[in-house]
């Protein structure tokens, strides 16, 4: 009994092998259809997961989206209500795995003059960390760029005197050029700095002068106080909301809120784009599956002769069907494995093309793509069920 079963099984596999070997062209066509379907499935699935995450990083382009201000922003004068600089320590550098960037600002109105001209004007002086300014002030143009920390500083920065970045309109008024020395006077205090960069933002920053926090605090006689803190948080709209409420809880004596212009706009756009992406990917996947199925069904239909022969020599309908389904499943497995791997490599390349960063291959995508391909392959072999009802004799007479 066991012997017969073993023989049966051996025969089963032998027939399967022969089925594959019988027609190379057909095998190739089937693998091509299944493989291409699997490749697209894997590439799109992988890219879709990745693209949404990358998209949230792209919103960094809008710069700061959260602001920490004194509880009531009714400050009647610039230095009336301030925050303690120690609040900076309460801001995490990371939230839900995404980096958080925070920058304190202290504003004061000071009399400014440049050594390149005689004019002296009132201007807003902002104390901050100008090396981090380009990250918070996304979209602002810095000429030349203030080097980030760690980068080798140009000669100007290594000089002993403090540095400042000047808004383009303030620079026009002061006739300040790169390398000029600015002097500030406020309530009997005096400080100076070297211009290392000119900022064009299109906003109020064009009228301001940015310099080191220590200088501004010294000029305003306000040590370790700041006017506000700007925070740039990245993530999905939901995660930014959570970040804001967490931060608000940890700072009961400050007003933490999203810069609505950007948080709201970002949320709206993010939802649109991710909806678009999901819908496109879903439709492409569904129709790719159907396409592959149609191609496969075509191939399956021509198996009439094989079915007729098998039935003629005594194969039961169930066994014949099992044979073809096994063949389809094996083809799906092979096509899925080859195509899935190709698709993941494809998505890495595509990710690089779109976001400049290779998409991280997600292992879960691979088995999903293979499983989907096998399902499609088996479904495509399904029309053979109808063939099981044909009569062998009529097939051989060439009637059907």
């Amino acid at each position, binding site marked *: 009994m066991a012997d017969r079963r073993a023989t049966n099984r051996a025969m089963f596999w032998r027939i399967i092998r022969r089925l594959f070997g019988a027609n190379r*062209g*057909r095998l190739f*066509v*089937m693998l*091509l*259809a299944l493989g*291409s*379907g699997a490749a*697209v499935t894997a590439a799109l699935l992988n890219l879709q997961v990745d693209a949404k995450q990358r*998209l949230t990083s*792209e*919103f960094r*382009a*809008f710069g700061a989206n959260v*602001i920490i*201000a004194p509880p*009531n*922003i*009714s400050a*009647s004068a*610039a230095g009336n209500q301030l925050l303690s600089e120690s609040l900076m320590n309460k801001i995490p550098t990371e939230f839900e795995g995404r980096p958080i960037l925070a920058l304190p600002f202290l504003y004061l*109105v000071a009399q400014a003059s440049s050594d390149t001209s005689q004019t002296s*004007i*009132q201007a*807003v002086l902002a104390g901050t960390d100008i090396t981090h300014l380009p990250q918070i002030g*996304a*979209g*602002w*143009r810095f000429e030349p760029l203030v080097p980030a920390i760690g980068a080798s500083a140009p000669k100007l920065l290594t000089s002993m005197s403090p540095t400042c970045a000047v808004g383009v309109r*303030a620079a026009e*008024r002061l006739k300040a050029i790169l390398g000029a020395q600015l002097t500030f006077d406020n309530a009997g205090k005096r400080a100076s700095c070297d211009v290392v960069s000119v900022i064009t933002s*299109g*906003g109020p920053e064009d*009228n301001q002068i940015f310099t080191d926090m220590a200088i501004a605090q010294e000029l305003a006689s306000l040590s370790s106080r700041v*006017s506000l803190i700007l925070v740039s948080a990245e993530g999905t709209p939901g995660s930014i909301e959570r970040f804001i409420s967490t931060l608000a809880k940890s700072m009961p004596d400050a007003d933490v*809120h999203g*810069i*609505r*212009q*950007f948080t*709201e*706009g970002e949320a*709206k*756009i993010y939802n*649109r784009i991710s*909806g*678009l*992406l999901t*819908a*496109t990917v879903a*439709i*492409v996947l569904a129709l*790719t599956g159907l*396409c592959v199925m*149609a*191609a496969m069904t*075509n191939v399956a*239909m021509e198996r009439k002769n094989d079915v007729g022969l098998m039935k003629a020599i005594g194969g039961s309908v169930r066994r014949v069907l099992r044979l073809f389904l096994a063949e389809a499943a094996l083809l799906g497995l092979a096509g899925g494995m080859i195509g899935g791997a190709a698709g993941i490599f*494809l998505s890495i390349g595509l990710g690089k093309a*779109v976001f400049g960063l290779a998409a991280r291959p997600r292992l879960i995508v691979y088995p999903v793509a293979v499983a989907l391909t096998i399902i499609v392959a088996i479904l495509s072999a399904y029309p053979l069920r109808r063939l099981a009802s044909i009569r062998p004799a009529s097939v051989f007479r060439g009637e059907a």
Partner: protein
Amino acid sequence: MFLRIVADSFGRRPRHKLLTGAALALGMGVATAALSVSLDVGDRLAKEFRSLGANLLVTPQADSLPLEIGGVDYRPVNAGAYLPEADLPKLKTIFWHNNVIGFSPFLEVRVSSSTPRWSPASAIFVKSAADGDAVLIGTWSNHPVALPDGGKFITGSQQTSPWWRVEGSWFQDGAGECIVGKAFADRNGVIIGSPLYLATTSSDGLSLKVTGIFTSGGSEDNAVVTSLSIVQQYVGKPGQYRKLYVSALTKPEDNFARRDPKTMNAGEFERWSCSPYVSSIAYSIKKVLPGADVRVVRRVADGEGQILTRVRMLLWLVTGAALLAAALAVGASSAASVIERRTEIGLMKALGAGSGTVGFLLAAEQLLLAFVGGGAGYTIGIILARLLGEKIFGAVPEPSLIVFLVIIALATGVTLLGSAIPLRRASRYEPAPILRGE
């Protein structure tokens, strides 16, 4: 005879042809939907990005340096320059007037607020004060602008500041109404419907009705916002404004757009000014508003451009992947349909047909299939694209002729390519072994 064979092939095996046709139609359907959406999405998204508000800021050129901290200008009212409101209709006469979707002028004055003990219930007094604790902003809420060509363009802060969330309703332009910021309302105990008095030194002042309380997440939360004309009267600057926000639909800037227009030659300049770059729109606005300095709000414009470029690229890639998959599946399907016809080919050759004739015949069949399948696919795709567009953007993409032509060409190319390899092999068949069944 030729036609008869082709017709016979379709009539004899309708199921096979139907399946190949279905694969083609589905594949081309995907391709059409993806293409239509990709072509359309740029414009739609550009509109979405307008929810970020104005991307152009107009200020007087001769202005003194604004002392602006946290969105509040600390200069006294009489310092600095102003721009005439009468020039504003000209914004809709520039070359890119259709791209200008909204603008609103702003005039601000610092005020102090107080709630005298003897005042009627929740009434609040506001008076101009250089060291005040709040700001009175005059702007348009939904203002009809009479255009030079006789038309009307309705615009205002509701378009340029769409992120303001107003509880109650916006004020009516010129109707003695105002909306107040949340922080201001909380501090002064203002509720919707409260009266608000604008105190002047000379007369009894003006009474405004609070129609809404709004949050903006910015400095406006501590402001009273009312009609531009009321504030102009109040500060004695009739017909003038200080800041103008313009919201325009733009094309993402590329390297060419960033060049200084002064360094371009005539041809380049024409190309530059005929593209709706934010900088060229700023340039044309500057030409119609004398004395104005038009600046691009870099944060909005650059962020928008960057994301738009990325998303567009992403969609093109998805489209490309869809086209590729459709092409491969269709190619596989047409290859299968040729392979299974070995016997027929053998018979035709045995009867004296040359390889060319056989190939031509089969190619004609495939082409017919491509046209029918491609056409059906285009219809499916258009329906799909409509569904997608409606669901995501609430607007349907226009069916375009280019997409149709591309789809038909693609369908033809793909079926022919898919059939080419098996056809080439078929043309080398020796009829005898095939007919013997070997």
